């Protein structure tokens, strides 16, 4: 299978930004079977292994985007406020051009998320950008923990409250929907536990509880098997979900966007919740007005595991610039800034044992830059996934599509509304009047 494709190579004579073990000059990185086998000076190239001369170049861990919507067919199942049972891993599409473009920006892994239309959306999938395969399963990062998308605030209240006149219509309603879902899941779990226990008794002849995939999934959250990634903006709603999770004993939680995270940074740190933020994107709707470009720095200084994400196929290609902005605003060190797009998102996705830094034994997911990646002059030259070069700037044909639609016409430039995220894709029909049957 394609996903098991692992490469060998030797990267020579680079400035190696390990992120977790300091910066090493004039250093080589040896890759064997898709893993980093050795980092050191003057490593001899094994017989027949590809050598990249990286003299004068910077080598960093592949960038990880903790919030994206690329490589999937379908973002929002916006028909119900709770859709925990749906799973983005079912609809991975390895043919989307956005994957290759992200590789062009040094990205090697993404968190392909459900949208934010529902209080409890669908499960997400962690993907490695193994461009070139038609096999959807080969894109999935084997062994990555399960994750699920939650959403607070205006998106669920607009879609379900305003759109369909059902709960939630307010922030209180969102809290109610989440609490009720967890309570139902708890009861469902208890019913099944009781049934499984009774079944052991000789002569037992009762009926099993009705199987419900939504409650099964919610029960898996309660059991700690699924990490919550919650779309959020305001400090009050962030704090609300911390309380809800405490009440239900849920510990694995990362907030997404978190524009007012800086107001509750100590509380986030105390809980152990992560924060995945924009560097300086805000004011695109009412609940996002109170924001600051110091957010990532304040969260970091308060000990919150913080990452910078894109939520956007274009921004994804320059996350290294986004990390660089935190130095202008928050004076973070190079390592703190690089951690925002490497080891920290890896921690938030539960894949830090294998990715997010350059260390012996980790996956060889590597980005090689001309000039320092945090400098405005940084340009990605090579992007390597599992030791295989998936993007090479010097060898980048104009048309990299894997499948060409025989009916396609020349694309015309589409101007889209600026500053629009993908979080609400698939909900448009709710905001148009299609009730033609009504008189």
């Amino acid at each position, binding site marked *: 299978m394609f996903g098991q494709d692992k490469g060998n190579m030797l990267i020579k004579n680079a400035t190696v930004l390990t992120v977790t073990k300091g910066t090493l000059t004039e250093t080589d990185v040896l890759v064997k079977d898709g893993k980093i086998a050795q980092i050191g000076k003057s490593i001899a190239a094994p017989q027949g292994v590809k050598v990249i001369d990286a003299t004068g170049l910077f080598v960093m861990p592949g960038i990880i985007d903790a919030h994206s919507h690329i490589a999937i067919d379908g973002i929002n199942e916006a028909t119900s*406020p709770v859709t925990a049972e749906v*799973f983005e891993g079912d*609809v991975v599409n390895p043919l989307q051009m956005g994957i290759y473009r992200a590789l062009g920006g040094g990205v090697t892994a993404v968190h392909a998320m459900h949208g934010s239309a529902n209080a409890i959306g669908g499960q997400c999938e962690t993907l490695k950008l193994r461009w070139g395969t038609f096999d959807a399963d080969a894109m999935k990062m084997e062994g990555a923990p399960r994750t699920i998308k939650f959403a607070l605030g205006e998106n669920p209240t607009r879609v379900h409250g305003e759109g369909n006149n059902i709960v939630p219509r307010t922030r209180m309603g969102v809290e109610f929907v989440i609490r009720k879902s967890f309570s139902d899941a708890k009861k469902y779990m208890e019913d099944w536990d009781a049934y499984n226990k009774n079944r052991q008794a000789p002569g037992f002849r009762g009926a099993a509880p009705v199987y419900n995939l939504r409650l099964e999934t919610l029960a898996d959250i309660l059991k700690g098997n699924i990490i919550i990634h919650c779309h959020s903006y305001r400090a009050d709603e962030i704090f609300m979900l911390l309380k809800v999770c405490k009440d239900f004993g849920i510990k694995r939680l990362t907030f997404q966007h978190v524009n007012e995270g800086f107001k509750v940074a100590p509380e986030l740190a105390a809980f152990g919740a992560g924060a995945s933020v924009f560097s300086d994107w805000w004011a695109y709707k009412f609940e996002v007005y109170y924001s600051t470009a110091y957010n990532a720095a304040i969260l970091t200084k308060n000990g919150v595991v913080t990452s910078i994400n894109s939520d956007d196929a274009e921004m994804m290609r320059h996350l290294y610039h986004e990390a660089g902005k935190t130095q202008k605003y928050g004076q973070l060190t190079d390592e703190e800034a690089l951690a925002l797009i490497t080891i920290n998102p890896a921690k938030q996705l539960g894949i830090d044992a294998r990715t997010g830094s350059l260390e012996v034994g980790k996956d060889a997911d590597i980005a090689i830059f001309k000039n320092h990646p945090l400098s405005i002059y940084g340009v990605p030259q090579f992007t390597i996934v599992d030791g295989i070069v998936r993007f090479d700037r010097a060898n980048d044909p104009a048309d990299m599509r894997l499948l060409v639609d025989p*009916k396609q016409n020349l694309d015309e430039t589409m101007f889209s509304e600026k500053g629009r995220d993908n979080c609400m894709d698939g909900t448009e029909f709710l905001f148009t009047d*299609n009730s033609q049957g*009504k008189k």
Partner: protein
Amino acid sequence: MIKKLLRPLVAGFAFCLAWPQLIFAQDEKPVAPVGRSYALTNATIIQAPGRKIEKGTVVMKDGLITAVGAGVTVPPDAIVIKADSMYVYAGFIDGLSHTGVPKPKEERTERPKDPGNPPPDKAGIMPQNDVRNLINPSDKSIEELRNLGFTVSLTVPYGTFLPGSGAVVLLGGKSADDMVLVNNAALYSELTGTQGVYPNTIMAVMAKWRELYKNATQNKSYAASYAANSNGISRPASDRILEAFYPVIDQKLPVIFKSERVMETQRVFTLKNDLGFPLIIGDVKEGWPIVNKIKSSNAKVFLSLELPEEVKKDDKKDDKGKSKKDSVKTDKPKTAIDIEKEGLEKRKKESIALYTSQPSVFNKAGITFGFSALSAKSKDIQGNLRRMIAAGLSEDAALAALTTSPAQLLGLDKRMGSIDNGKMANLVVSDKPYFNEKAKVRYVFVDGNIYKIEAKDEKKDAKAIAKGTWNYTSEHPTDKSGKIEIKEDKGKHSGTIASGSGSAVELKDVNLKDNSLTFSFEGSGGKQEVTVKIDGDNFDGTVKGSQGSFSIKAKRDPKSK
């Protein structure tokens, strides 16, 4: 068995140029041939791929093949059809289509109060539906496919998600029951959601699929334990939706999925691997990139008979690639757009070649496959088969995919798929080898009943008229239906178009040449160019704009001409 008289359909349309006819024995009055016995004599008989008899005879009686060979004597009661210089093949089998099922009208439904919990039928969950109740034996799709040599189809209901169960039907008969060979032959499913209600996205359809299957499994085992001993436990509820899955869970009934696209096919495999049902994938169009995955899935495969249209040679260009229109102008340097266009055209051509060579790729990979007519226009099917052969599929392999392979895949190889004694009398007779470009089907036998195919009228269609009120439907994402008004004044055409929800827009450059009508208009998505062929009171063609190219069909109010 009483012979069913086949009367010609009332052909009110110019396109209905072929009809079934009984061949009468020199008699004015239709007399049912005693025992339905026919003999095709002196023909080249291709019993199965690689088994050929020169100057042979096939004898049929009571719907069965009773003799085949070179030295066969014709029984006295048989009606003899002299098939000198003709070619006889086993009747073709289509592995997935809606043949015989009239397309339901799209109804506009009100948005439900709670889109998250629609009634099952609104969500496309109707696995208990039986295609037998939906078949119309005089639906023209039956005749269209039969005229190409098809005698059997696995036909399924229209719909999304879980429209019901399909049946193997004969392409001829007076009632649905007449036609059905195998009822409940497969449970049909599409990974398509319903607009505005749950499940709306593919991922929700897949989640719901899993849940229904697990619910059915649980209900089934409870019902079994209740049947074994009902004393002291609550009765199981009756649930026709879940009960439709029971034979699937028992591995007795396969699920047949529409599986056109390369991702769709893989998603179907995801469900199969999760749940373990027997699987048929139908109308496969993009299987070649994952041919190994398909092979190792052990799913049964029916490849699509539809192919992307070939790039037409630009008739405006002469051999040197210069446009005749622009031949006055000197060669301008290529703009970036020209280069982009050329690159795209090159890749499109390569892409079309990949689609066309799919059957050859599957054949080389050693996968047994049949064909599916689900989305192919019947007028394209013969040409598409020839294109597949030109792209590397051997004629024998093509014939196998039309006869022996589908018979085997559907578990019907004892009854059909080859011309052998004791098999059903399903045959197709053509005047030249079937895959020859000029070959015409002359006779089709379905279950021993003869259908004579009249040679197509070569005469020109009556002059097309564009004037009138046309009600159109389109696959266009935002403009699904509406009205087009066309006026004519001394040969000059003008008109308006109004989509279902919008106001009327003026048509520009309305042109009618022979039966080809073209016009353009400013739609919501910018300029849209429409090209259609008029055929009586119908037209059919494409609408092209910045969003892409989509099909458009229309019917004219005959009074408005």
